[in-house]
């Protein structure tokens, strides 16, 4: 198996375990199984789903749940320009590709050196993630309470660590390093003062100083 397909599968397995916890939480928050299935298959952006269900579980309104979920979903729009050129030009596969455009698929695609590998990594990671996210969700909703707390086996550290691996290739250029450092700093500074999701949107402003840096190296 090509390395990027194997890495995509590993990421998807970890995501599948997280999906179990989503299923458990959604069930506990009082969602019907059909609602949980619709969410995981059609919303398909994990952080937003967790946010929505947590708000409902905490007694919040449907509008509040959708609002906080949308703040977290908004960043997927920023991945569009990164992945669009990898998608086929005909509308149907493009529409499916758009649905799969999330953190993990964009990351796996963006670290490949060649476009053909990037497209392959995007689709394989996407299909594996979608499948395991949905299987995990249903399993969690039906029998999840028996798995215990995945945090006790450190699953919450798996994602940031995986993303460090996926960030490294973006640090090879000076503008990439500026974007990364400023992006992390903006996000950290925003966490205590803004609702979940907003720090990541604020972090996207880091492309401005990074762009200035790229102009400087271009004119030299």
């Amino acid at each position, binding site marked *: 198996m090509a390395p990027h397909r194997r*890495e995509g599968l590993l990421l998807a397995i970890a995501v599948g375990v997280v999906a179990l916890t989503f299923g458990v939480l959604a069930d506990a928050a009082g969602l019907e199984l059909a609602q949980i299935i619709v969410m995981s298959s059609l919303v398909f952006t994990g952080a937003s789903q967790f946010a929505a269900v947590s708000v409902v579980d905490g007694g919040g309104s449907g509008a509040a749940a959708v609002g906080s979920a949308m703040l977290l979903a908004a960043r997927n729009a920023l991945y569009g320009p990164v992945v669009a050129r990898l998608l086929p030009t005909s509308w149907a596969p493009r529409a499916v590709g758009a649905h799969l455009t999330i953190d993990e698929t964009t990351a796996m695609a963006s670290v490949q050196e060649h476009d053909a590998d990037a497209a392959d990594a995007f689709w394989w990671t996407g299909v594996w993630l979608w499948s395991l996210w949905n299987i995990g969700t249903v399993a969690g909703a039906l029998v999840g309470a028996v798995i215990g707390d995945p945090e006790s086996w*450190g699953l919450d550290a798996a994602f940031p*660590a995986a993303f460090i691996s996926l960030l490294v290739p973006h640090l090879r250029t000076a503008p990439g390093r500026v974007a990364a450092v400023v992006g992390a700093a903006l996000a950290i500074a925003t966490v205590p003062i803004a609702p979940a999701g907003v720090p990541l949107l604020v*972090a996207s402003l880091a492309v401005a100083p990074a762009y200035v840096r790229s102009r400087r190296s271009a004119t030299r």
Partner: protein
Amino acid sequence: MSWSAILVLVVGAYGCKLFGVVVLAKLGDTDGALDPRLAWFPTVAGLIPAALFSALIAVQTLEADGVLQLDARAAGVAAGAVAVWRRVPFVAVVVIAMAVTAAIRWQT
């Protein structure tokens, strides 16, 4: 949670993704007809992953219930970062980060 709220979320979440792939990506279209006033866009689009993934790592490592927190998870991610720096394979990076986090939680 009502079906109408779920429907709004389905449409909204997909709308964000589609907006990115169809509208935002058009701005960065480099083959030919790029407006010179948007010449900066492909460069900026190329820098988005660096900014967002780094922010995602920071938030997922340090944020808990809306506040910043240094805990077992941060130690595990730090171990993962060292592993990346030592050019350890991807799978092992993830396993090391989880193992260190789990070990610290188990100890305390």
